[in-house]
């Protein structure tokens, strides 16, 4: 892993990340994009929908489309029933990313972000906005736009 110098970031700028764990891997979402963290309850499954769509649920009167992040990232399905969801907005619509658990909020310097390693699984690289090296572990930045955009556009075009 070599540092990518071409990554343009203003020195000193920091970004706060909400960290989440999906299948044992730590991921980070820019805090500005996270609207809620909630326990998904009574999720209504949507027949015929893409497999990554866990279903729809009612979050304070809004209908939220829940995305099973394990499936989205091609990870094995979760065994324990415990799960959490992160509420985000994309193009005026509400989505819930179903994850394993939520961790702390980290403030990281933008210039310590590194580009995706070239050998990263392509399917992950698609949705990853880079990597942060933390103490003893790595945090993959989830790019919400790409994550959801890839799911919406091909379908919309169909």
């Amino acid at each position, binding site marked *: 892993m070599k540092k990518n110098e071409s990554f343009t970031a203003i020195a000193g700028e920091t970004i706060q990340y909400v960290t989440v764990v999906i299948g044992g891997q730590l991921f980070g979402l820019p805090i500005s994009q996270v609207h809620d963290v909630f326990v998904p309850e009574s999720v209504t499954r949507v027949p015929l929908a893409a497999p990554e769509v866990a279903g729809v649920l009612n979050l304070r009167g809004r209908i939220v489309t829940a995305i099973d992040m394990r499936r989205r990232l091609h990870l094995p399905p979760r065994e324990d029933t415990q799960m959490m969801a992160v509420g985000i907005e994309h193009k005026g619509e509400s989505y819930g990313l179903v994850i394993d658990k939520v961790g702390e909020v980290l403030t990281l310097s933008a210039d310590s972000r590194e580009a995706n390693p070239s050998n990263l699984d392509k399917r992950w690289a698609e949705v990853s906005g880079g990597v942060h090296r933390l103490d003893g572990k790595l945090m993959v930045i989830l790019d919400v736009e790409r994550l*959801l955009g890839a*799911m919406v556009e091909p*379908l919309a075009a169909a």
Partner: protein
Amino acid sequence: MDDLLSEFLTETNESLDVVDVELVKFEQEPNNAKILDNIFRLVHTIKGTCGFLGLPRLEALAHAGETLMGKFRDGAKVTPEAVSLILSSIDRIKAILAELEANAGAEPEGSDEDLIHELERMALAADGSEEPAAEEAEDESVAKGELVYQILERPLRPGEVSLDDLERAFRETSMEIELPEEKVIDEESELDAELEAETQPISVARKPAEAKPEVPAEKKKEAKSAAGGVSNQTIRVAVETLEHLMTMVSELVLTRNQLLEIVRRHEDSEFKVPLQRLSNVTAELQEGVMKTRMQPIGNAWQKLPRIVRDLSQELEKPIELEMIGADTELDRQVLELIKDPLTHMVRNSADHGLEMPADRRKAGKSEKGTITLSAYHEGGHIIIEVRDDGRGLDVEKIKKKAIQSGLSSEAELEKMTDQQIFRFIFHAGFSTAAQVTSVSGRGVGMDVVRNNIELIGGTVDLRSTQGRGTSFIIKIPLTLAIVSTLIVEASGDRFAIPQLSVVELVRVQTNSEHRIERIKDTPVLRLRNKLLPLVHLSHLLGIAEAKDADASFDQDNGFIVVMQVGSQTFGVVVDGVFHTEEIVVKPMSTMLRNLTMFSGNTILGDGSVIMIIDPNGVASAMASHASGAIAEEMANGGDDGIQEAVEGHSAISMLLFRAGSPEPKAVPLSLVTRLEEFEVSKIERSNGRDLVQYRGALMPLVYIDPGQTHRAEGTQPMLVFSDAGRSMGLVVDEIVDIVEDRMNIEVGSERPGVLGSAIIKEKATEIIDLGFYLPQAFDDWFMRKELDISALTKKVLLVDDSAFFRNMLTPVLKAAGYDVTACPSAQAAFELLENGDVYSAIVSDIEMPEINGFEFCEALRRDARFRKMPILALSAVVTPASIERGRQAGFDDYVAKFDRPGLIAALKDVFSGELGIAA
């Protein structure tokens, strides 16, 4: 000033709509002074306001129109041309207004000289007819606006003149208003510039108008859509405000539902009474808000009298437009959406519904055709009917067109009712108009109409009687925002089905009169003498764990939601039905919008999200689920159903069984007379072969594999083939299934008794050659009847696109003593015939791609060489109508495809006939 302008636009648009209607009335009743006064006043108001706002182009045009109308008021003769002219001036005014709106208050460039000139000419002519007092007018140049005023105003009454003066005074005052910074884009035409130079007051007045800031978007919208009379009793509210109010009320309804649900769970709750009150208030509020959105359907009809009038002139047919129930109210949103379809349908009726006056006279009708529009409420729907008393739809024409455009085959059309055939006009690109006129016949239309109506959850149907007229019946929901739905359960999930499309609920139980029956694996329900195709909701949605759904079907218990979409009726089997609930439809998220099975989702009273089933999606899925057989049974197949039937024409029912070896074997079901099981003890052995007593005769048993024997005990299944009092039992180990499939024999066989192998149900299956086994039972099975002619070897050409039938019939015909040549298509047959091959007779299939049997036969009959040749038709469809069609095409006889003895007999007949003639 901008407020003023938008107000002006709104009001003027409304006034112009009224003028349109009034003018049409006026043309019919030229002596009605009241109507004329009305029109005059409206146009005058428009002119006055234009002058006030500094819109010179509009003003000049309105003024010229007003002048001509003034002449009418003074007693000049009203001619249709004059009315047309005024109408086109009004159209021009509308066009200018539209641009005015788009350009934030700036008049578009261009000149109306043409119209103004015409109007003046007409006014002069009108003058001339009563008093030749307009000489001065003649020398005035048209473009000089100021001068035009002077001449034109002179004949007006004093009252009007003073009004103009008033306007002028207004204009003068507008000069004193702080003049806005001049950032005028120079979009005036040269003519306008000229005008500006010559008519000082106008140009000054225009400046403030040009510099006006943009009219806010809402204002524009309001101006466009708001309608209804203005008086002290009403206020104008932006549509957006109402929309917002509606959304809030919808949310309130949801919350109320949630509260009610909570209270329902707690039996004694102190909240019960206040909640009841809240519930009532909410309901009333909802109703009230809905009412604000309601508008009389007459608003959508306003433009129709004018359109009909114009059409009437253009097509030279007198047409009367009757409108009944114009005050029937419906949701604004719905109203907007049906405006265009309605207009289109009226145009359609006028253009090719109604006949020309001469034809009408011939048919004993009054020369004037009538188009009737009526609207009324029925349940939660509004029914709109567009009816004409014209010639009605021509079934034959539609049929021809349907065949031409490949929507359906001749054979299928034969089976359809007129009603079903009429529905073809809703197909894209389907126009029966013999020629394209400016009005219709361009092939876009009825399909768009249907789509638009179905988009808002409505349906359109039609009735037609030849010579008496056609009527289109549109059924649409009153509102789209709140839908009453039926909550059902399937495989543990709940779904909402809009009640609009639910006809009834049927409870099925194994031992009740309503039970699910099957044709092959397709479930159907007998419902009042009709077969209702069924589909399990879990199957449709793919949520069934296969065994679950089968179990529920096996028990045959459950509920059937009978749904009607268009004229397609079908049953959706669900596991349970809960209750009905008023729900607020929320659109699906973009990620899920591609699912055609759902129209949206909503939050139920208990807080959970539920998917709303889209009846249209179900209907089309149903049609593609349904096998050919079901599609035929459906009262009215949708497009897909018909498509399915077309594609499925080569599919045949096959009986799958096992015998001798584990590989599946198949035989066409139609060849099998019966499936029987006999006690093994009943099988007797005599003369070295196994026999059973069957219907008073001995039936020989035949084994697929010569080494095979029947079972030692229990019962023995067998297939019975009967013909002319003789029967044969083909001993099988097990009857596996009956499937409907296309059969393509992919691998031919050299083995006797097997025609070849085909893929059936994804398995390689041996197709049994019955022609091999039948003689095993009776050596002379094929021979006995044909023996007498077998001496005469005749060449027979067999044309069939299906390899199976070629393989099956060739040996049969050969066994009957014919020299058979088989070919796969009519083209191939033509080639053979052109090559000089001589045949004594041709046996042709009817259902073939490209050139069908009828066409093939017709083509042959046109050729002198083949005029006398015996040609037999062979078809899977044998109905009196198709036989008649066959005769017309020139076939000597028409035989069912599986009726092999019949074919032999028919061949024999044609040959003996031929011999008789020859003799």
